[in-house]
């Protein structure tokens, strides 16, 4: 007991001591130290990224994983330094790190294109056993013709389609989770009330959906229109996209720009029933109240999103 008390006390004293030292170190010196270290690390990572092309496939996985970890460490280093860095330096450093991140991502996509579906290919490459290998080969086969076949990725999904009109009816999606991924020039109509939707990498698509009882998660979309109603809506890394929404909590955007919002205006026979099923409050719609996680200033409006002017709002067929 006393030993434990003693230990605690020692630890506390040590902490105080450390903090004191931290405070006493002159801030300028810290800044210089920070800049030297960060730019050195950035240079090194950059060099390693450009060296990737000369590696074999098996080496690449470790190579990229290693680089990602290093990049994360650099990011951590930066976030620790935000305590004393001037804000200009912080934004500069953030910018160069995100540039580096993009460069790494691009290189990775270029050299290991399959990696995009990281979850499956990774599993297989680690040789987790026969079962997962089987799954991933089956999944490859499915990528070519996903429609009307049992799904492996999720119960309901549209993946890898181009230029199609797709739809699902209530018996397929009610109270299920739906996944949409890598669609181009498609129109998707989801009649019914799913529990949740995950959307990834869409381009030039129009997505219509009935009331979702839970959350919708959208990532990496471009030039799309979404007509959605749900409890929660999260939008990430998306650009030049319009949203006609009914959201009962609050929608958020992150790393997105040129996104516009309007009230939900899709209608089809049976939608009232689906609203009931979803439990969404029809009277409560916060379509114009968006949180931008990259814009925390309260006194100025985020430049990343705006409202669609009433005369420019479109009307849709069921």
């Amino acid at each position, binding site marked *: *007991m006393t030993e434990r*008390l003693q230990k605690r006390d020692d630890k506390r004293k040590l902490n105080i001591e450390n903090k004191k030292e931290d405070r006493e170190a002159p801030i300028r010196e810290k800044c210089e130290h920070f800049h030297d270290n960060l730019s050195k690390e950035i240079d090194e990572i950059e060099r390693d990224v450009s060296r990737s092309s000369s590696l074999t496939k098996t080496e690449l996985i470790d190579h990229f994983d290693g680089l*990602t*970890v290093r990049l*994360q460490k650099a*990011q*951590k280093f*930066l*976030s*620790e330094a*935000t305590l004393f860095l001037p804000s200009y330096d912080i934004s500069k450093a953030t910018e160069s790190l995100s540039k580096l991140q993009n460069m790494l991502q691009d290189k990775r996509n270029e050299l290991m294109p399959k990696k995009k*579906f*990281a*979850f499956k290919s*990774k*599993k297989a490459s680690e040789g*987790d056993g026969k079962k*997962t290998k089987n799954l991933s080969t089956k999944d490859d086969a499915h990528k070519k013709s996903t429609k009307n076949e049992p*799904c492996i*990725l*999720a*119960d*309901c999904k549209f993946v890898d389609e181009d230029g199609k009109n797709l739809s699902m009816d209530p018996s397929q999606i009610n*109270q*299920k*989770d*739906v*996944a949409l*991924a890598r669609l181009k020039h498609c129109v998707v109509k989801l009649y019914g009330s799913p*529990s*949740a939707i*995950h959307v*990834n990498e869409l381009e030039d698509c129009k997505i219509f959906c009935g009331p979702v009882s*839970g*959350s919708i*998660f959208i*990532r990496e979309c471009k030039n799309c229109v979404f007509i959605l109603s749900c*409890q*929660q809506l*999260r939008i*990430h890394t998306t650009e030049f996209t319009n949203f006609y929404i009914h959201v*009962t*909590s*609050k929608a*958020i955007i*992150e*790393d997105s720009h040129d996104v516009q919002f309007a009230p939900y205006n899709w209608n089809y026979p049976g939608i009232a029933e689906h609203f009931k099923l979803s*439990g969404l*409050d029809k009277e409560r719609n916060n379509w114009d109240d968006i*949180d931008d*996680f*990259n814009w925390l200033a309260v006194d100025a409006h985020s430049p990343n999103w705006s409202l669609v002017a009433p005369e420019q709002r479109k009307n849709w067929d069921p």
Partner: protein
Amino acid sequence: MGLLTILKKMKQKEKEVRLLMLGLDNAGKTTILKKFNGEDINTISPTLGFNIKTLEHRGFKLNVWDVGGQRSLRSYWRNYFECTDGLIWVVDSADRMRLQDCKQELHSLLLEERLAGSTLLVFANKQDLPGSLSSEDIRKTLDLDNIKSHHWRILPCSAVTGENLLDGVDWIIDDIASRIFTMD
């Protein structure tokens, strides 16, 4: 103040457990917290910042910190590491596309010195969704078996139905108590 009083005070204080709840955005952290506390879960907005709740449970005082999981907030997670007894890592079991992200974030957290010695509970949340992965799948994908630095356990759960939330919290408290409150 006699020694006994001091000891009593310490013991009272030590019945406090600090739990930190982290995970990618959309994992359901706030929903778990509110459901556990018996609050309405239909009006929850994505967390910009954090929520703190102090709950009484089985004679323990639980200080639960629920920190937003958006990418732009993750660099602030470190501000909440200090004095954490238990880490609850929440996973959206239906978000197959981001499980690798999830794995990376979790494993880099576990390297944190200030989280060393804390107990790890992984909630494979959203089991109410038919398309969700089982906790077994999540365990493999997140490579949990390689975690040697922390006591850990994974449980399938659903914040919507409340399934397993109590079991999870009970387990993490028991594990923490067996490490810290040896006086009982």
